[in-house]
């Protein structure tokens, strides 16, 4: 497992805070998910009702990690800041691009990406830290470079995250995918990956 130093922004103070990006979700990360992340999600739903359920409330990271950790084609990432879990991501490297300019070329596909509930403005105001999603997308782009995929990545976005991928990540939307619950499918080209890494 490799650990990289990254920075998140403390929403209240506006200051950058040192954090760690780990290129493997460990049992300890899953314990943190069970102990703090999952209860915070449940507490939010209990207080605000089913309509306030976060779009990823049903994602079970214990199951995801257990199934994918032994597989060479799957990679998991975790962000830890001040001893607490701030984000989780699972990606695969077995899928091909659909965008005509890079059709058929391999991409790193972001299967699941989530920031901790206390970092989401719809759950906590102000959110604790900002920047988790950007760090994770940058990690996916870096992995794509490492594998020789030249930064190409793809993903299906949950509705509330579409603006982030479209505007902040400059990814190209290819339309809603009927085969994946009608979720919007996005890809990042080599050129946009370079720009994204330059800017982040």
């Amino acid at each position, binding site marked *: *497992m*490799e650990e990289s130093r990254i920075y998140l922004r403390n929403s209240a103070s506006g200051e950058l805070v040192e954090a760690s990006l780990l290129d493997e979700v460990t049992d300890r990360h899953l314990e943190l998910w069970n102990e703090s992340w999952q209860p915070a999600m449940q507490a939010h739903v209990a207080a605000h009702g089913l309509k306030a359920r976060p779009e990823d409330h049903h994602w079970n990271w214990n199951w995801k990690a257990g199934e994918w950790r*032994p*597989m*060479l*084609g*799957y990679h998991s990432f975790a962000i830890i800041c001040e001893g607490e879990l701030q984000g989780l991501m699972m990606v695969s*490297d*077995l899928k091909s691009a659909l965008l005509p300019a*890079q059709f*058929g*070329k*391999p991409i790193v596909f972001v299967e699941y990406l989530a920031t901790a509930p206390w970092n989401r403005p719809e759950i906590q105001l102000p959110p604790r830290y900002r920047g988790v999603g950007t760090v994770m997308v940058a990690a996916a782009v870096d992995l794509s470079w490492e*594998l*020789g*995929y*030249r930064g190409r990545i793809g993903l299906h976005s949950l509705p509330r995250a579409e603006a982030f991928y479209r505007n902040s990540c400059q990814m190209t939307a290819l339309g809603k995918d009927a085969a994946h619950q009608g979720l919007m499918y996005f890809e990042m080209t080599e050129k946009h990956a370079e720009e994204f890494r330059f800017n982040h």
Partner: protein
Amino acid sequence: MAEHEKRTMTLNLTAREMAVLEELAAKKDLNKTGVMRLALRLLQAVDAKLQMGQKLMFEDEKTKEKSEMVLL
């Protein structure tokens, strides 16, 4: 870290296999090592699914006709 260290091996291929490898490398925009590593990851993923009792199917986008790929 140990798990990121690379190990080297010699791979003997027939001329035909090498031609296919080179063709795939060009098509996938990868070097030959990248293609072989991708093939390994893919085979492991498919094998895991088959071990779980799942099938590998291909679907024709136009006709929706499905065919099963049987692997050893």
